[in-house]
Every structure is written in C-alpha cells, then in structure tokens.
C-alpha cells in the first residue's frame, strides 16, 4: 500500500481555472440542492417535518419537554414545536455554547430539553459544553442536529462529516442516526423516554418514509435486520440504510442476494446482533455510513468483530477523509460513493 500523501488531499481544480455551466446527461442545468429533504424523495412517500411534529405530540403528553434553538428553528423543524408551544420554546440566538449550557441548566431543574442546531455547530463549536455540562453529569438533554454528514452542498462549513467520530469518544452519550421519517418520529419519543444525554442526527423538511413498509419499529440501542440475504450483509446507519435497501434491490436483479442490518444507534453499539449476523459464514460484510471513514460505524464494527474473533470479508462505504467539495448533492453523493450506483459498483468489485 502506498503511503498517504502529506498535505491537502482535495481533488478540486484551481480557483483560477474558469468553469462552464454544468449540465446533466440530458442537457439540463444542474442546480444545487441545499438539503437532503427533497433529494431522495423522487417516487417515495414523504412525511413533512417528522421531528417537529413528534416533539409536539410528546409535548402534549409531557410538561417537561422544552425546545431550544440557536437561530435555526426553521432549519431543524423545531419551528413546528415553537408555533404550537411558544412558551416552551427558547430562542437562544446565534450562540451555541450558551444554548447547550442553558439546556443543561434546564435539565438540572427537571426539564427534558431538546436542543437543536446544525451538526457542525454542535460537534465542533459546543463540544466542551456538551461533554462537561451535559455528558459528565449524565443529564437528559437531547441534542438533535440537522445537516449530518454529506446532506448539504454548502461545503465543509456546513457538512458535519466527522460528527460521529467526535461524539463517539464522549462517555455517557447515546448516539442515534435515524434512517427516515418513521424512524425519526419513533426515535424522538424513545430518546425522550431515555434518562440520559442523546445526540441524534436529523433529516428535516419532507423526509422520505421507507422503513414502515418492512414493519420496522425503532428500539433504542437495537440493530435490526430489515431483510435477509445470503451473499452480502449490509450493515448501515442513517439514511444509508435507504441506499442499502435500494442497492440490495439492484443487486438482487443481477443475482446477488443482500441482507440489510440497520444500526440506528451508533453508541452503545448493538454488538450482539452485529456479531451474530457477521458470524454467519459466506457473506461479504459491507458497512455503510453518511460519515467520514474515520471513527464512524465502519471502524466501530470492524474493531468489534476483530475483538470477537469474527473475520468475514469486509468493506466500508463511507466518505473519504477529506474536506468535501461544494456542489449539487446528487453529484457529490455519486462522487464520494454514497449513491446507489456507487454502492452497487463497489460491491461488485468485492464479490
């Protein structure tokens, strides 16, 4: 294997090279989709603002539910809650550190705060406040963050490609990466019932709904087989489970039988289920995540299987350890290997 190059690994062209207007294969202009909400929705059922509506349902049942935002309520779907329960909504301004600290203070006084912002700001800017004010004291604050991984074309300022890696090192913190609208709704209730701190990745706006058709129900801390298969075992988290299901369909048409194991709770990891599935012989194991290859699901699963003495053929589909490009999301997903086309191509090289 070659040594990794020293220095920037970006594949970007020089900023001094003029560019032409990009067009699709059909000759249409390619425009940027800022959020994932509408990206994956073609031909799928969607649900509007599942997190905001679930939080309203919760608030109707529980007086202890409060919501905080750092000037991003419209972009985390918390505005739905803010409109329904204005007196239980705290606009903390563009100040993530005090939003997190104040959530800790509210939790100290018996409330269950949902603190929302973008994943980049929670993981990068507010880390010290989350770990010391919330995690160290095991307070029941729920940090729910939009734009996880590569779900915006705005570039590294908004792409939280390393949030799971950052948060996995934090003791006491439970980490959830839901797949779709059904799961976001169920997980919102489940994390509210859980007595400790939680970081949950969020898809907002019109969110695709796919798991319902498999009779799936979210259970905090549990990995679940969505469907079986004899040639490949996909172990996936977040919306990559949607992609894994689509890739399984595409591969099935070509005679490859793929199982999908969905792992919405990254921490604590359901190692029992993962080991049991990975130990079934004769299957290529492929992890899929909307996150850098460093420190996410793939490394967590690989390390655990090594410790358990389970050694299947193994591959990881994840984002590269790079600052990603700005651009249109479908292009970027293809470029960085998260699209169904990229997944199926990758798997075929490993069979």
């Amino acid at each position, binding site marked *: 294997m070659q040594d990794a190059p020293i220095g920037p690994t970006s594949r970007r062209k020089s900023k001094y090279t003029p560019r032409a207007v990009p067009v699709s294969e059909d000759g249409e202009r390619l425009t940027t989709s800022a959020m994932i909400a509408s990206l994956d929705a073609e031909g799928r059922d969607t649900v509007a603002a599942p997190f905001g509506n679930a939080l309203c349902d919760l608030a109707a049942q529980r007086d202890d539910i*409060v919501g905080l935002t750092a000037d991003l309520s419209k972009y985390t779907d918390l505005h739905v809650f803010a409109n329904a329960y204005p007196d239980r909504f*705290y606009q*903390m*301004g563009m*100040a993530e*550190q*005090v939003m*997190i*600290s*104040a*959530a*800790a*203070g*509210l*939790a*100290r*006084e*018996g*409330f269950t*705060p949902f603190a929302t912002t973008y994943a980049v700001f929670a993981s990068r800017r507010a880390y*010290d*406040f989350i770990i*010391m*004010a919330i995690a*160290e*004291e095991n307070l029941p604050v729920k940090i729910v963050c939009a734009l996880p991984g590569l779900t915006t074309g705005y570039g590294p300022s908004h792409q939280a490609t390393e949030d799971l890696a950052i948060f996995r090192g934090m003791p006491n913190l439970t980490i959830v990466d839901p797949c779709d609208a059904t799961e976001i709704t169920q997980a919102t209730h489940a994390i509210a019932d859980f007595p400790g701190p939680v970081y949950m990745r969020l898809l907002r706006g019109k969110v695709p709904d796919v798991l319902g058709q498999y009779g799936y129900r979210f259970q905090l801390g549990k990995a679940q087989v969505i469907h079986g298969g004899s040639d490949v075992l996909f172990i996936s988290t977040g919306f990559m489970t949607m992609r894994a299901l689509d890739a399984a369909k595409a591969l099935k048409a070509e005679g490859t039988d793929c199982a999908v194991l969905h792992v919405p709770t990254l921490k604590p990891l359901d190692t029992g289920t993962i080991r049991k599935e990975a130990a079934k012989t004769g299957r290529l194991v492929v992890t899929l995540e909307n996150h850098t290859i460093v420190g996410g699901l793939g490394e967590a699963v690989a390390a655990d299987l090594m410790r358990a003495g389970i050694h299947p053929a193994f591959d990881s589909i994840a984002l590269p350890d790079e600052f990603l490009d700005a651009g249109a999301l479908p292009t970027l997903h293809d470029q960085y290997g998260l699209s169904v086309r990229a997944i199926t191509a990758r798997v075929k090289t490993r069979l």
Partner: protein
Amino acid sequence: MSTETQHAGANVSLARRAWSIRRLALRMAEVQGQGYIGQALGVADVLAVSYFHALNYKPEDPEWEGRDRFYLSIGHYAIALYSAMIEAGILPEDELETYGMDDSRMPMSGMAAYTPGMEITGGSLGHGLGIAVGAALGLKRKKNPAFVYNLMSDGELGEGSTWEAVMSASAHQLDNLICVVDFNDQQADGPTTQALARGDEAPKWAAFGWHAQEVDGNDLDALVTAFDTARTLSDPRPRVIICKTQMCKGVPFLEEREITHFVRVDPSEWARAIAILDDAIPA
C-alpha cells in the same frame, strides 16, 4: 435560616464566619501541601456573605427544591467552597482531611457528582454562567422564586461563552440570576487586567443590560449591601456583583508574597498561617 446579620453595621458574626472559612481552607491545603489558598483566602468574605447572609438553604437537605442555587464555575475554588459548606453544616468537618485524596468527596476541582451542595461541575472555565441561565429559565418555568448565584473568576471574563451567557440572561430578563465575579486580577499567566479584562467591568456589564455593582470584596458591610440590593431590586435585569478581592487576604506574610495564580507555601508555613489567624479571632 442562615441570615445571621440582620443587625446592620455589626457583621461580627460574618467576620467570624469568614475567619472560619479561611482557617478551614488552610487546614485543607496543609493536608495536600498545596491548593488554591490564595484564591480561598481572597474569596472567603464573599462566601461568608453568600452562605451566612444571602443564600436560602437547608444544610441537612442540599437538594431542597426551595434552595437558592449556588454554582461554582471556577472549579479550582472548590477548597474555598468546601470550607464554606463545612462551616454551613452541609459537609462534615471530619472529612476535611480527605481533601484531594483517593475516594474523597472533596476533589481538588469541584464536581457535582462528588459533593453534596456542589451544584455543577465547574473547572472548564466559562461554563457556569450559561448553565445558570438555563437554571434561571427553569426556575421561572416552575414559578420557583429561588435565585441562581454563579460564582466566577475574572479570568472567565476572557471566555467568549461568558458573553454569550451575559447577552442571553439579559435577553431573557433573568432577574433571578445573580452573577458574582471574584476579581482578584490574577489568572494563570499573570494579571487579568493585562490579559482580556482591560475595560471598566461594571459599565461593560451594564451596557449588556445587567444591573452591575462593583464592591470591595473583602469589605463585609459593602458585600452585604450589594447582595441585598441584588436580591431585593425590583427590576427585570440580571444582576452582577463584581467583587474586587485581594489574594491571600487575612494572612499578611502571604499577602506580601509575590502573588501568583498558585501561591507557593512552604510546609512549615501552614501552621504559621493558622497561628496568625488564631491570634486574631473575630468576636
């Protein structure tokens, strides 16, 4: 009730409380042969007024819902707060000699999970005031009339998060929040006023929408007046009391020593310092 000095002007009892806090802190520091004794001696008067005049609490029930919350943002001041809480009967005096040892309930830096009466885990500076904002919001939600006090250092004025919290408290009109700044002009690498806190602090806080007072933090009468004003003010603004204190106050040979963040005390000097206090017990 712990309000001991309703008779204005005398404050004899508070002087005795401050003396006790200093003496307990010296005993704790002697156990370890080190400790933030300069800060503890400097802030003893502020803590005496807090715990024996201003705060409402039940020593036997540190989590009593009606208590005023006292947040120690500056974790390394724990030695001072343990002393105040021992004096207040919240912590037992006979555990004093466990200070900083394995399995102690009194670790060197204050943590909520270790110590009864220690409300938050401080130490990562610039955290207390933000948590206090949330607690003050929570108390208002519950219609609980208690106050939240946040004791912070002047060094924490350099943390950006402090100013997020300052703006937030003002925006939410947290009149149940009292921030107490121990301004001893000493942070780890030198004088605070040669670092970031170069402005006139009280007008700065006032400009952010706070009711701001600046007092001699080693003057018990002045502290009582300032705390009373902060508690009884009919005004939606959050309150700050900037307490100008002297490191090592009460032990002249240490006061004269070159003052640093971590005051050097030789092993033989602990007994000498305690003896000096014992020669001047307040009535």
